[in-house]
């Protein structure tokens, strides 16, 4: 009945177990203390549910591209251990996960104004 959906996708050097992608969503856990531990459990349960590939919420490649002054970015080695919590949790369940790289450009903010921060970070839900 779901022969297309449950059919693996061969990418040549690796295979996705089915055709379902969990799309990128920013949860706001990315920015709170202990948030990556919680994210790891969030993604672990989705990997247990056999989704073919997960995409994380948007992570900025530099300071300028952040959704807000405190938003998550990945441009130093120091930030790697947090992300390893997620990738190990997903891989332990036999899942696969990609990280979304998001630079907001003119949708970013340069002050502490919360409403403007929210406008830009609110839209990772597609």
């Amino acid at each position, binding site marked *: 009945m779901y022969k297309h959906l449950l059919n693996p996708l061969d990418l040549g050097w690796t295979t996705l177990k089915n055709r379902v992608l969990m799309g990128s969503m920013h949860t*706001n856990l990315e920015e709170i203390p202990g948030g990556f531990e919680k994210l790891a459990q969030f993604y672990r349960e989705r990997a247990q549910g056999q989704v073919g590939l997960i995409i994380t919420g948007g992570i900025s490649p530099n300071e300028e591209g952040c959704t807000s002054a405190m938003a998550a970015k990945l441009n130093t080695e120091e930030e790697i251990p947090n992300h390893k919590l997620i990738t190990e949790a997903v891989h332990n369940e036999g899942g696969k996960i990609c990280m979304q790289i998001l630079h907001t450009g003119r949708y970013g903010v340069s002050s502490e104004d919360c409403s403007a921060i929210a406008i830009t970070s*609110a839209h990772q839900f597609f």
Partner: protein
Amino acid sequence: MGYHPKIVAPSQLQAPINFFKPKALTIDDIEKTISDYVQCALLAQKAGYDGVEVMGSEGYLINQFIAKRTNIREDEYGGSYENRIKFPIAIVRQMRQAVGDHFIIIFRLSMLDLVEDGSSWGRSHCIGESNQATGATMINTGIGWHESRVPTIATVVPRRAFSWVTKRLKKEVNIPLIAVNRINTPEIAEEILSDGCADMVSMARPFLADADIVIKTMKNRSNEINTCIACNQACLDHTFQLKISSCLVNPRACHETEILYLPAATKKKLAVVGAGPAGLSFAHIAAMRGHQVTLYEASDRIGGQFNMAKIIPGKEEYGQTIRYYEKMMEKYQVNVCLGQYVDVDILVKGDFDEIILANGVNPRKWDIPGADHAKVIYYTDLLEKKVIAGQKVAIIGSGGIGFDVATFLTHHNGSDTDIASFMETWGVDMEYNHRGGLKLAQPELPERQVYLLKRSTGKHGNTLGKTTGWIHKANLVKKGVTMLSDVEYIKVDDQGLSINVAGSPMLLDVDHIVVCAGQESSRSLYEALLSKGLSPKLIGGAFEAAELDAKSAIHQACTLAAEV
């Protein structure tokens, strides 16, 4: 705060949804930014990710380079289309060189900008081909910018409304494509794939509602999926308010380490009164944990207020939640007693360990001269189809229910799930003859003349959801609904409804007046039980009726069920 970033963009043009003007990037800045993308991908690889998705849609930086709307540069990164796509092409090419062949690179391509001066179709397809050539593994679909005024993901958007866009690119490129937006069931997903629209489907919010969509599908248990109703109330609306995301129908989402549904240490005999969203949520979690649950419902069906919500055009998905609960009642063997009006005796004789009252709300009575006139009805009369409204209708109260009733009254068929008519209503050009995929909107004429009234001053719709309120309001404007504020209600008689608007008298010669003026908790049973020395627990609308709020009702029910 550790640092104060300056926002940057291809050109110094401020976004209509931002308070700040960006600084235009110099050539050096652009080269630095490209290498930041590459470096970020390398760090992601080191962190163990299987790949990255390069966000090139929704009006973010890469999209800002591609579209004329936001790129008025005169150097090698602006001007011609070939120049405007240099930035993303350089990112993907250099990234592929750096990470090697065995690393997924998904490019999220804006295939339908839905803004003026957005890309035309030929352009989207060119950049798709370029990505294929420069090393992207797959292309994901982006629909609309954040500043576009077409709904793209809310419940009002029909299922798979935009899969035709991805299908268009499917003919042009050979790498796998991913379809997105309003794909919320395995049946719809299968349909998209078998129609040849895409090679994969993306579901985001549906994985908040249910982590096990795929495994349930594999085991032919798709009727057990807790389906995303695209309400945005606990996901997008939370993110917008800088709260942790969650899900209206699944409060555990993003709270997996805090809300745990573990087997009950002591099995209890529980009574639940009221089979609305709160009672059903409590009953199914408690029963799943091993408790013996009896659920009493006075009417002949489960679902409560969701039975009314699901007949509002654009809210059809609420019916899915009722289907889920029906299945859960069966699966966890909840003893459901329909048509059972419960009194104190039944609960006392039942010898229950705990009594949970989820018996909801009653509409608040309207008290003005003539409130008992035949023209005056309550929203429940209308939505339970006890009364069919006339051609001219006034709605009292402009909260969520008032808006829903106005939507219900102005639509023709009572259903709004047709993709082509959605695109006409919101001005989306399915032929893609215009830039950005926009054309003149041609909404259907309204079914009735409707007045939406409220006592307070100020704009209508301010109390609605942060990310969906504008859609509901735009919808009513398209339907010619007259919205009046600062209204004083004087009387109802055969002539109609007499009001003062900002102090000036006005007569609305309406056929019906629909009262949506709030509701009150049903508390009589609660008080009767207290007087017998019992200590029932209140959840949902019976606990707090100030706003009919399914999100807090379900959250309260699930957290109580986790602990009982």
